[in-house]
């Protein structure tokens, strides 16, 4: 068998498995909860049929927006992770590396501390003040990291990494300061936000998230092949005709947008952006033309499953989904690292 056909077979297998996983986890997240609904009834409700009792309403107005939001956020985080790992040419890069998550955290805390209780419920185009704060904070941090790392010789990826660490440290101390001065109620809300949660799901929010995911997937046609070339090295990619500076700028903007909005919608959710592309790469290889869409499928499935677990494990209490992903993701990642050591970085 030729190598190309063996890789292609693995990609097909991976695509088939992840699509099936996404369907199953989508149905599970619609069916499971305080009221369990049978899969056949879920399908009938989705097709618009009337169900006995409140089952139909529970699915279409409560669980469906939440499931769509979870799928959207998971997909966006995984795609952003894949892009960043390609950009940094490091399979262990994570969206939080360039300071988005830390910046968003500062923005959200600031909104909670300054906004007070009165503004908690007020919305702005489907986004609460906290979401707007998070998005703005994330964007400001990325802009800062990018500005410092970009000089006359282009963007230095190494400087960007160090700058990301510096900005994250700065943001952490700002968040800590606000924790210190906040009252009990604010403190609780800030820490809950930081753990991440999808309980604010509405149709509008889910819609925004899915549009962002579609945007990221459309951009793939343009950058996947160039990103493959960039893995060889920046000057190598330049000699292969890739406009490296434009590619880097485009990717940074896409990732800041994707991660910023998903953090604004669902708080900080760990490990999806790091682990999902990494796992897909182990299975289907590093070619971004397959890696990006497969990561989207995997990320969506993972967050749907994690959210379903978070809702049902200790029902009626709801766990923050960010805790669940880290709880499942971290041990898994440790196993991966151990297996890989000494083989491929």
């Amino acid at each position, binding site marked *: 068998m030729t190598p190309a056909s063996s890789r292609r077979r693995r990609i097909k297998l991976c695509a088939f498995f992840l699509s099936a996983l996404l369907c199953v986890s989508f149905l599970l997240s619609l069916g499971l909860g305080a009221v369990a609904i049978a899969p056949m009834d879920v399908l009938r409700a989705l097709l618009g049929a009337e169900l006995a009792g409140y089952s139909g309403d529970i699915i279409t107005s409560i669980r469906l927006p939440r499931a769509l939001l979870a799928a959207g956020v998971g997909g966006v985080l995984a795609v952003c992770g894949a892009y960043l790992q390609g950009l940094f040419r490091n399979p262990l890069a994570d969206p939080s590396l360039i300071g988005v998550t830390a910046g968003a955290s500062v923005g959200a805390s600031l909104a909670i501390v300054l906004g007070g209780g009165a503004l908690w419920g007020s919305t702005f185009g489907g986004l609460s003040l906290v979401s707007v704060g998070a998005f703005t904070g994330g964007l400001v941090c990325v802009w800062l990291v990018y500005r410092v790392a970009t000089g006359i010789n282009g963007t230095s990826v190494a400087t960007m990494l160090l700058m990301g660490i510096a900005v994250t440290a700065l943001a952490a101390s700002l968040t800590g300061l606000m924790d210190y001065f906040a009252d009990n109620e604010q403190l609780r809300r800030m820490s809950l936000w930081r753990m991440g949660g999808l309980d604010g799901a509405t149709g509008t929010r889910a819609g925004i998230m899915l549009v962002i995911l579609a945007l990221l997937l459309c951009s793939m046609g343009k950058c996947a092949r160039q990103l493959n070339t960039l*893995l*060889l090295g920046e000057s*190598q990619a330049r000699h292969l005709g890739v*406009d490296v500076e434009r590619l880097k700028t485009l990717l940074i903007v896409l990732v800041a947008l994707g991660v910023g909005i998903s953090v604004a919608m669902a708080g900080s959710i760990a490990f999806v952006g790091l682990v999902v592309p990494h796992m897909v790469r182990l299975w289907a290889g590093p070619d971004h033309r397959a890696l990006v869409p497969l990561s989207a499928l995997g990320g969506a499935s993972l967050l749907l499953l994690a959210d379903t677990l978070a809702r049902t494990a200790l029902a009626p209490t709801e766990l923050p989904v960010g805790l669940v992903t880290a709880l499942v993701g971290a041990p898994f990642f440790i196993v991966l690292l151990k297996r890989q050591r000494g083989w491929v970085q």
Partner: protein
Amino acid sequence: MSLLSVRNLQVTIADKTLLHDFSVELNAGQVTAIIGPNGAGKTTLLKAICHDLPADGTVDFAGQPLAEWSSAARAKKMAVLSQHNTLSFAFTGAEVVSLARGPHSTGARIDSQICIEAMAAMDVLHLSNRLYPTLSGGEQQRLQLARVLAQIWRAEDAGERLLLLDEPVTSLDIGHQHQLMRAVRDFAASGVAVLMTVHDITLAAAYCDDLLVLHNGECVATGKPEQVITESLLADVFATEVTVIAHPKTGKPIVVGQ
């Protein structure tokens, strides 16, 4: 008109002149090697020519200043092998080589045929299925060479082409060193100007049309290997006493220790 014309090239970084007033003309079909001690400016010269480093002076490629070429058009006519190629992602050998066809739109069938031919020329066909990070240094080097060859493989895609190689033979065994030099010679004959840095003077003298000797950023000698390689020049440039003898069959200079 020569394919590559470099005039008065000068590289100054942090007040230190790394390359001083360098000029050279390269023609298609010609293989030129740059020799010189460590830190003489060989890599700086290659980087300045291909615009990886800012430099003063003019570099004309196919009659037009190199800076005016669009990166896509340039990539079809000019390939560069850097000294350091790190790739930690698990591409297969065939995938690495196929990245070279990115600048072209010749279609998948022709592209894969070209990749196979280039890999055969570098004796790496058997590595198609292996994962790049698991290969030895020499195998990785030969795969990268197959990649740059595949990038400018066909004359019908781009006419006369330019190949810049920075220490291509450094980590290869003697068998593959000679195979590489022969492959580069054959490749040059198809209408390619080759400029490479080499440390093994005997190897360079055996296969290259012209040698350029760099010392402290200046070109101190240039010409046919027989004329350039003399005991006094080598003693001067490399600060080592060596003996130069003529090859019994070809008459090319061979450098041995005292």
